[in-house]
């Protein structure tokens, strides 16, 4: 490993200034990706600019939705009660990244800027309409995460810029969300497939009846009960990872869901459409046909999980049963 110098700025401005004056420099946050790349010799920077001591990007601010600093760790997100309740999909995603040790230091900004096709916080941010806040020499700008992630290891950052945080709007109490990571092991494994869903619904009948529906054991019985209560999918977001070079939204499925009353048939259709929008490849983790099939299964499960949470049936973040 080549020698490098290590810089420790304390403010965003200082970080940008230091970066601007250096040749061959790289930002480092939690370091769980950067340190591995260094060791493997895949990157050889002469300077690392650490963002770990920048207090202003390590906060969670819950006014008008939420603003999560880029330096907030996955552990902090997964344990945050407000995020668990209002942005459950993100707590799900943050809680399944790597291992305990990784989550204790790895940051959400790093997870997104590393832009792996399998990033566990990416799909949740996509369905939550999150925007990345980017700071640079000329000031601050905001870009939807959907436009920010370009491709594998590629994000829309200009030279010297850095992500300072993510802003997510408030969705109100008729919205629920969930992320399901489909992997062989529960820890230290990348997903075969990741699916996030956010659903904003309108209930014709009683919310309590919908909540009680989730006490049933058979999924088709649950769906029938919800259908009987006239549960309408007002606004749905679906995002998929590991089915394309970058995490993507299933826009046709989202469009098709709009205004539909929930039913087994509607759920099947949404899964089919989302699967038709996926372009998975064969890899040692899973074959393309399998991934495509699982898109159908997990889209349905994540949607039902979102509704379950919205009704208040379950405040658990980890899916308590296999939807």
């Amino acid at each position, binding site marked *: 490993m080549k020698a490098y110098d290590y810089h420790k700025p304390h403010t965003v401005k200082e970080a940008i200034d230091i970066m601007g004056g250096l040749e061959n420099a790289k930002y*480092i946050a939690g*370091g769980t990706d950067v340190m591995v790349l260094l060791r493997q010799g895949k990157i050889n920077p002469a300077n*690392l600019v650490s963002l770990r001591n920048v207090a202003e990007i390590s906060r969670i601010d819950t006014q008008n939705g939420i603003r999560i600093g880029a330096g907030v760790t996955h552990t902090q997100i997964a344990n945050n009660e407000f995020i668990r309740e209002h942005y459950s999909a993100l707590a799900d995603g943050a809680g399944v990244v790597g291992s305990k*040790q990784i989550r204790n*230091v790895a940051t959400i900004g790093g997870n997104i800027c590393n832009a792996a096709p399998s990033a566990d916080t990416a799909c949740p941010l996509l369905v939550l309409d999150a925007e990345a806040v980017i700071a640079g020499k000329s000031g601050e700008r905001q870009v939807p995460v959907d436009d920010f992630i370009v491709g594998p290891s590629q994000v829309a950052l200009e030279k010297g810029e850095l992500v300072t945080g993510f802003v997510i709007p408030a969705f109100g109490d008729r919205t629920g969300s969930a992320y399901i990571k489909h992997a062989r092991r529960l820890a*230290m494994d990348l997903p075969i497939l990741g699916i996030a869903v956010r659903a904003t619904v309108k209930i014709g009948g009683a919310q309590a009846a919908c909540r009680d529906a989730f006490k049933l054991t058979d999924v088709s019985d649950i769906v029938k009960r919800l259908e009987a209560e006239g549960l309408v999918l007002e606004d749905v977001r679906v995002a998929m990872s590991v089915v394309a070079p970058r995490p993507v939204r299933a826009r046709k499925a989202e469009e098709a869901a709009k205004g539909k009353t929930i039913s087994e048939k509607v759920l099947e259709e949404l899964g089919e459409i989302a699967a038709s929008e996926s372009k998975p490849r064969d890899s040692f983790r899973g074959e393309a046909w399998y991934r495509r099939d699982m898109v159908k299964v997990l889209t349905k499960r994540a949607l039902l999980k979102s509704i379950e949470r919205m009704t208040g049936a379950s405040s658990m973040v980890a899916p308590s049963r296999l939807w």
Partner: protein
Amino acid sequence: MKKEITFTLNNEEVIVEVDPKWTLIHLLREVLELTGTKEGCGVGECGACTVIVDGEAVNSCLYPVMEVEGKTVATIEGVALPDGTLHPIQQAFIENNGVQCGYCTSGMIMSAKALLDKKSDPTEDEIRTGISGNICRCTGYVQIVESIQLAAERMKK
């Protein structure tokens, strides 16, 4: 390009000259000769190198040494009492056959300690999550989980 850093290591203040490119495990093993912390994969996959920094379990192989400045680090060497009395977690691992080849053990014990320091009465799920970043290729984890449960019981008393 050496720089001086100060931090607390196993309750003692340490001032040491480091090269900015070192990782924490390099400092611990190669310079301070605290070889109880093991290096397995070197890329954060196996957890053998787990130490506790400011109360959180971390992979010391991924931890830039420059970030240790001002922090409090606990390694396996500081777990037993100075008179040699073993920590309840260590004692439970011995009694419960939580150790076979021993390579993962330092890391397992540090992960378990980070967990029990925060939560004295963890569920089995919480224990399994707590050691989810530690790979053991011998025991199959059952004895390890039971060791941590036994330690938790004893530590409550």
